[in-house]
């Protein structure tokens, strides 16, 4: 990518930071969600997530890896190479891997099986930071953007899909660690907040739809595009649990639980968030 792209990325972040600062100077009592809605509107035509999307599209089409092939032969659920609308139906069971996969694990699967990367290489940088950019985040940004406006429709037909959903539900209420936290400590009641951050009630349709369909998101506070795997990883960190393994069964189970609960809503990401 060109230098100018970095420059504009930098500028976007700077502008957004100024906005964040003013948000917190202003009446702190008003809902943080309103503020976010406001600066999301202000940035409407310039979500920096687009930089990740553009890089992701290139990465999808480029011949890469030891086998020097593109990912266009990758089946992410709707047939080889079909990207449009695919994310709104994930996670799902894939017979060739005999497991339920979310987009990110499916991409890794294709990088390994089609492009010939080792698993270690394909997952070396699942979350980027600064100039250490993550290819997976970029690919995820682009592929999810191709589902914008598509109605969420995550099926629980296969037994393994049902198992994943059930396990995800159990994990959502699983208390542990020094603080006795579970996801449900912070996300099972409506109208609650931590400090000034509104907490979606993810056990309800409305809350799950809002919380799920707006990821991945460009995080203004981090200057990074973050995926749903990252969201789960970071909530577990705050929950004082050990570190969630990328692509692990629990990560897929929770994603299946939340994505299925979001069914019926239009997918609306990559979004922009605090």
């Amino acid at each position: 990518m060109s230098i100018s792209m970095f420059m504009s990325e930098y500028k976007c972040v700077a502008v957004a930071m100024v906005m964040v600062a003013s948000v917190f100077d202003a009446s702190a009592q008003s809902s943080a969600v309103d503020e976010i809605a406001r600066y999301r509107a202000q940035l409407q035509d310039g979500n920096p997530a687009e930089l990740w999307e553009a890089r992701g599209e290139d990465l999808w089409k480029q011949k890469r890896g030891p086998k020097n092939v593109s990912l266009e032969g990758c089946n992410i659920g709707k047939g080889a190479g079909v990207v449009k609308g695919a994310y709104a139906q994930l996670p799902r069971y894939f017979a060739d891997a005999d497991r339920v996969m979310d987009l990110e694990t499916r991409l890794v699967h294709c990088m390994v099986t089609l492009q010939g990367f080792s698993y270690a290489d394909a997952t070396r940088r699942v979350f980027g930071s600064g100039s250490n950019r993550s290819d997976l985040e970029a690919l995820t940004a682009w592929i999810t953007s191709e589902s914008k406006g598509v109605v969420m429709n995550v099926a629980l037909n296969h037994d393994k899909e049902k198992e994943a959903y059930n396990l995800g539900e159990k994990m959502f209420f699983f208390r542990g660690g020094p603080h006795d936290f579970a996801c449900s400590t912070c996300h099972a009641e409506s109208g609650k907040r931590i400090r000034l951050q509104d907490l979606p009630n993810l056990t309800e349709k409305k809350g799950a739809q809002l919380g799920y369909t707006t990821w991945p998101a460009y995080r203004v506070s981090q200057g990074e595009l973050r995926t749903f795997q990252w969201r789960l990883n970071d909530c577990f960190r705050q929950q004082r649990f050990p570190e969630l393994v990328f692509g692990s069964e629990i990560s897929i189970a929770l994603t299946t639980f939340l994505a299925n609960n979001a069914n019926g809503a239009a997918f609306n990401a990559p979004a922009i968030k605090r």
Partner: protein
Amino acid sequence: MSILKLAFASVFVCALVAAGCATVSDKTVTQQDLKTIKASFKENGQAKLDRLDQDEAQRLCSIAPSVTIAKADAARVEKMNLESIKYPADGKLMGDWQQGERIAQTGVGKQYSDNPATPSGGNCYACHQMSKAEISFGTIGPSLYNYGKLRGTSVEMQRYTYGRIYNPQAYSACSNMPRFGHNDILTEQQLKDVTALLLDPKSPVNQ
């Protein structure tokens, strides 16, 4: 064998028998689930895998808030937790409210991203309104504004408040509030300091 152990044993047996065991509800965390959970995490810094080993209260409280815990289980959880409360040997329950305010403001501690050498905070403001000045407060817990002004500072009140922070589940099974003393999040001195924050007439909580 207690009822609880029996229930646990039957879950275990059912897990071994696998499919079609009527007594395992869909929502019971099985031994197999626990294995899957452990395999899905890796230790990082101070956050080791043993954090996934639930104690009895955690296990009994891993239920949806819409499901009320059985009365007998709730009583069990409260009794067990009440027995765990250790009051300071010197008998003093009120420390320095100014230190208490600092502890209430910070949420650092016990995350794998935290330096274990840094003392943990209580993060009370994350969940409670406490003073008039601090408008950035959460609402998971009830407002504690004017706590001491409304309830006084009798010895019983001090003991209740210290115990409530040391181990909330002694009073309210499955509380969403961390067991700050029981789980070694705050030190004895820190517990005294936040107790003073709530009760001391000079504290911003009581202005």
